């Protein structure tokens, strides 16, 4: 490929920015922040350009780059995006400048280096873009693991009171999953090596999709990958690190953690587990769907009883990831497209919730739901934004999540009816926990101590406005995004050797659930 290396550039810019931020003298910290924001905006612009260059109807992987890296293992530095990866890269590129702006004063307690904080976020952006853009399984694994390190330091150094515990828990869970995946990656390599006689083996995604694996080995390898992704996603019962990590992480890091990093898990299931191990995926699908449904209810129920705002949002995410996993393993193009869309939507809606919760906590210095009440009276804009984000999270029609949730459930219904019906109940629970928290914090009598709560500042408004705009836009007109996603999902379906079941019931019938 002689064309301009868009993906490398997009990935490299934040790292260069991080170096610049770190190199800034201690006295020019504010300037360093601006550099960080500028870098992330530049990345966003480049990503938009890349999106424009992407041809939704074109070949499966576009903007491809491929260079030999470690020939001894057959490892290549191979990047490329399909619709799924591109939309997630876009999600990261949009969220990072927002997070930087939102965290503008978060690292200012004087004890920790401000520059390091922003540099870590930028490095994290590089890793996130890399993990989505990699088309070499080894390269994917490298980014998958390396991504942990900046997040680990973000949580551990800048987090709340229990930060060190949360950071270690986060890292160990992820490392454990990652190491299992490493075993599977090596196994996949060896299997591929035996099949591709004459070459040194390969990690190229598209090559590996075409190899045939004996069923027993395939199941073992699937489990290696799947458990890593399930920990990352996080799927019940591998989720226990998430509430701790998300609650202790600084707001910005929490947004990126839940909004983007965890998507790597579901992305991996869709992009790697299914095409690489189609038979095993089918074999395990009932188990995964069961876990996903348990997750939907478990997350919802725990969110309802959760007194800690940040943990509450984290538990809602567990429920949402249940929906995404359900969609991925439903093996219909509708459900998978819905799941992909859900990943993007969840990034924005949960991101918005974390940001707003962060703003609230910044005002009251408490994470407890019980310390809030009647915020609407003193900060109507904040309350309004919270309302919109919350409604998006419960998938109100007209807002983004509705489209994706609907697609997931419809797609699941055509194959797994019972599961879809049960999952639908989860939506009711989602409505309950979101409305409950809005009622408790925003409405009712004003709590003592909240009298002088300021409304959204200009910076905060700038932070939250774009997110809310996107939430509404994707709810009203998701077509462009779906157009990008659907062909890629179809290609994935093709890899798994599955076709959509012929609809036996008119779609409209499920629509009125």
């Amino acid at each position, binding site marked *: 490929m002689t064309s301009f290396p868009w993906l490398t550039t997009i990935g490299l810019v934040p790292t260069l920015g991080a170096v610049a931020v770190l190199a800034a003298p201690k006295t020019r910290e504010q300037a360093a922040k601006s550099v960080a924001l500028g870098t992330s905006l530049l990345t966003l612009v480049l990503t938009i350009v890349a999106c424009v260059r992407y041809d939704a109807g074109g070949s499966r992987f576009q903007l491809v780059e491929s260079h030999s890296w470690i020939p001894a293992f057959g490892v290549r530095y191979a990047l490329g995006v399909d619709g799924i990866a591109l939309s997630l890269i876009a999600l990261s590129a949009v969220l990072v400048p927002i997070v930087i702006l939102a965290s503008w004063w978060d690292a200012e307690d004087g004890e920790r280096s401000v520059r390091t904080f922003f540099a870590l976020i930028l490095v994290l952006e590089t890793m996130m873009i890399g993990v989505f853009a990699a088309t070499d399984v080894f390269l994917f694994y*490298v980014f998958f693991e390396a991504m942990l390190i900046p997040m680990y330091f973000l949580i551990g150094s800048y987090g709340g009171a229990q930060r*060190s515990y949360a950071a270690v828990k986060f890292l*160990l869970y992820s490392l454990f999953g990652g190491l299992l995946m490493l075993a599977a990656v090596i196994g996949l390599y060896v299997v591929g090596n035996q099949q591709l006689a004459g070459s040194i083996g390969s990690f190229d995604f598209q090559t590996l999709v075409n190899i045939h694996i004996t069923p027993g080995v395939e199941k073992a390898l699937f489990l290696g990958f799947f458990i890593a992704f399930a920990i990352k996603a996080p799927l019940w019962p591998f989720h226990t690190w998430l509430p701790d990590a998300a609650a202790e992480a600084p707001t910005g890091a929490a947004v990126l953690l839940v909004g983007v990093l965890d998507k790597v898990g579901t992305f991996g299931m869709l992009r790697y587990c299914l095409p690489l191990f189609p038979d095993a995926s089918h074999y395990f699908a009932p188990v995964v769907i069961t876990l996903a449904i348990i997750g939907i209810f478990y997350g919802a129920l725990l969110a309802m009883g959760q007194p800690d705002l940040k943990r509450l949002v984290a538990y809602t995410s567990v429920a949402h990831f249940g929906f995404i996993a359900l969609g991925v393993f439903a093996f219909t193009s509708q459900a998978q497209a819905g799941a992909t869309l859900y990943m993007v939507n969840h990034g924005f809606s949960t991101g918005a919730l974390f940001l707003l919760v962060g703003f609230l906590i910044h005002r009251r210095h408490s994470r407890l739901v019980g310390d809030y009440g009647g915020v609407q009276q003193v900060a109507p804009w904040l309350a309004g934004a919270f309302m919109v984000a919350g409604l998006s999270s419960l998938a109100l029609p007209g807002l983004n999540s509705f489209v994706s949730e609907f697609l997931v459930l419809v797609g699941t219904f055509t194959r797994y009816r019972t599961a879809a019906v049960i999952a639908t109940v989860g939506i009711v629970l989602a409505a309950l926990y979101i409305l409950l928290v809005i009622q408790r914090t925003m409405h009712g009598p004003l709590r003592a101590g909240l009298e002088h709560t300021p409304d959204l500042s200009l910076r905060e408004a700038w932070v939250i406005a774009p997110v809310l705009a996107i939430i509404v836009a994707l709810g009203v007109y998701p077509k462009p995004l779906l157009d990008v996603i659907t062909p890629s999902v179809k290609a994935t379906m093709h890899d798994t050797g599955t076709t959509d079941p012929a609809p036996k019931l008119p779609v409209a019938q499920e629509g009125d659930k």
Partner: protein
Amino acid sequence: MSAIVAAAGDITAPSIEYGALAPMLIVFGAALLGVLVEAFVPVAHRFAAQVGLAITAIVAAFVGVVVLAGSHSVLAEGAVANDGPALFIEGTVLALGLASILLLAERSLDAGGSALVAQAAALPGSAAERAQPSDAVQTEAFPLALFALGGMMLFPAANDLLTMFVALEVLSLPLYLLCGLARRRRLLSQEAAVKYFLLGAFSSAFFLYGLALLYGYAGTVRLSGIADATRGSTKSDGLLVIGLALLAVGLLFKLSAVPFHSWTPDVYQGAPTPVTAFMAAGTKVAAFGALLRVLYVGFADVRWDWRPMMWIIAIATMVVGAVLAVTQTDIKRMLAYSSVAHAGFLLTGVIAANKEGLSGTLFYLLAYGFTTIGAFAIVTLVRDAGGEATHLSRWQGLGRRSPLVAGAFAFFLLALAGIPLTSGFAGKFAVFAAAIKGGATPLVVVGVLTSAIAAFFYVKVIVLMFFSEPAADGPTVAIPSPFTAAAVALGLAVTVVLGVMPQPLLDLAQQAAPFVR
């Protein structure tokens, strides 16, 4: 009388290829010169002379290894193999030796001077010891280190078991002595020396008994001869199996595999840290080289006899090393147990018993050696009034005090944990891939699980350094002289480069792969 003379005339002069043996001979020669330096150079100039001599010799020997690269022959009447793996390990050991000499040459960290004792013969706490000038150093350590280095070079290159045994002793005896030469905590250091010595002698007796039984089995101690004897033999395997098992005990002791690891934490903790670094890196590399040669050259055809046993040992080594490391509170002991765990990971590469296993193990050895030396070099930097502050609790909040040093240490730990983009990851990948290919998948699963356990204690230290509040009377980080700084930089550079760009070295290890028979 005349008959004897006539008969003596029958002996044809042996041919010794001095050119091809040059790297080893340079190191041994420099060690001899070092002894002469002790005798003839005035005290004031001895230190500089020894350091200069050692560094020059190591660099010259390294050049020699580079020049010899690609040779594939048997030297000195069949005693020494001059093949790819031998030269690869010789080069590795020389580079690690250079880094260790640099650490030994450090004198500016401590008010007391070097890490080495001023006068080993002066009793601790006695008037005679107090009378020592503060810049005095037992400079004999340098020739001793060179002798050990020479032994480490020969150990994996020995083509018969007798030469291997003598090399084992040549590398061990100076290390026993060096262990006892710590400047501070001298009793601890001397106890480490006694323990290391007694257990080392014990294990070399096993090695010897194995050698004797194999001699009885094969009628020769040459590895190729043993290989010939095992091939198509109708003899009962009793001697062969017992002999190999006993031989393996001696080798496994040196590379601290469970259950022959009990000396490792004590000795690593008690020895002067530069010596610990030298042992942890150099001895392990050399011993694995020897193990590879013994198993791949002498016993390749009876691999079904030794693989089951090695499976058990590898699993035990990984599990015990990783689990016990978690409970340690001393940084040197923790690194010692981590080295035990790494011996287990390396053994998975040995068990693969294929070409990939050999090249992967060679790569891992080099990667691990430099990371370990770097980590121990940093341990020498963190000091308080009592010398090195090795208790883990003293490292609290080090990341705040001196982010650079703590960052470098964290990086070494991440490399030991096998995080991608570090050399440790590439090495682990290489040996695990070889092991799966060699049919040892369960072993790799155990390896991966223990890696997760191991990651726990590496991460624990990082947490301690970065996320804890520094203690008020915490240790200071000494400003290293260029010597230690160079050793740390070398470790860092190799760890990064091999993590990002492992290909050139993998190529080298692959080219080195076949052993000469």
